[in-house]
């Protein structure tokens, strides 16, 4: 089945990762920024799985397993922070959170 060259997967995940970077840089909604980070993590996961297949090593799949655990923790903590920030400021705009800006 796997007749698709490895480079195709790598280029696809580079494109997905860059789309996620655009979301983190330009969106002004914290929830969408967090979603873009999830997209970037998934692009990296795709690279891990593709290399695992083409090098015949299970370590790549195990790494994806751990990335999923960390992503779940990150989403939970990130959304909890978003909720408490929204309670204090009634806003989800990251540009308005500049209390520590010099």
């Amino acid at each position, binding site marked *: *089945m796997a007749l698709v060259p490895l480079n195709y997967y790598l280029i696809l995940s580079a*494109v997905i*990762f860059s789309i996620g970077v*655009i979301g983190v840089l330009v969106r002004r909604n914290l*929830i969408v920024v967090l979603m873009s980070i999830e997209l970037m993590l998934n692009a990296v996961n795709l690279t891990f799985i593709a290399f695992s297949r*083409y090098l015949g090593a299970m*370590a790549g799949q195990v790494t994806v397993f751990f990335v999923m655990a960390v992503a779940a923790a990150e989403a*939970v903590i990130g959304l*909890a922070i978003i909720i408490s920030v929204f309670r204090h400021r009634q806003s989800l705009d990251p540009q308005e959170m500049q209390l520590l800006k010099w």
Partner: protein
Amino acid sequence: MTLPILFFYFIAALLVLASLVVVFKRNVVHNAIALVAALFLIAILFFTLHAPMVGVLQVLVYAGAIMVLFLFVIMFLNPTALERPRALGWGFGTVLASLLAGLLMAVMNHSETPADPLVATEIFGSPETLAKSLFTEFVLPFEIASVLLLVAIVGAVVLAKREH
């Protein structure tokens, strides 16, 4: 042009489309639904890469649990009513990300990669082999991940609790 390559192109085109919707649509609920679609498409790619267990986990954990959490938060906060017109840095961000994409693609296209995949055995990527390497070679990271999840649970409860 063989059938697997055509199938890959089809999935890849849908995946890029879903990712663009995640980033560029203004409605947050549409973003979340498009992200679910993108995660499903990535799970399909995992299945074609002999990783059925990770693909199933992708659908269950990501497209299931994490996205339900996102939708719950969207429902609580109702952020569509508060969406600002647009940021200043759209052009800047897009140019920067395009440069990054070009750089990544150049590096990945010229890196030394095996042209042909190793012949996959029947058990490669099965739950059995994944569990075997998880509980022998990677048992310490596995335990650390469980502690991390516990800390995340406690942290989420503390953060989202209403102060008295």
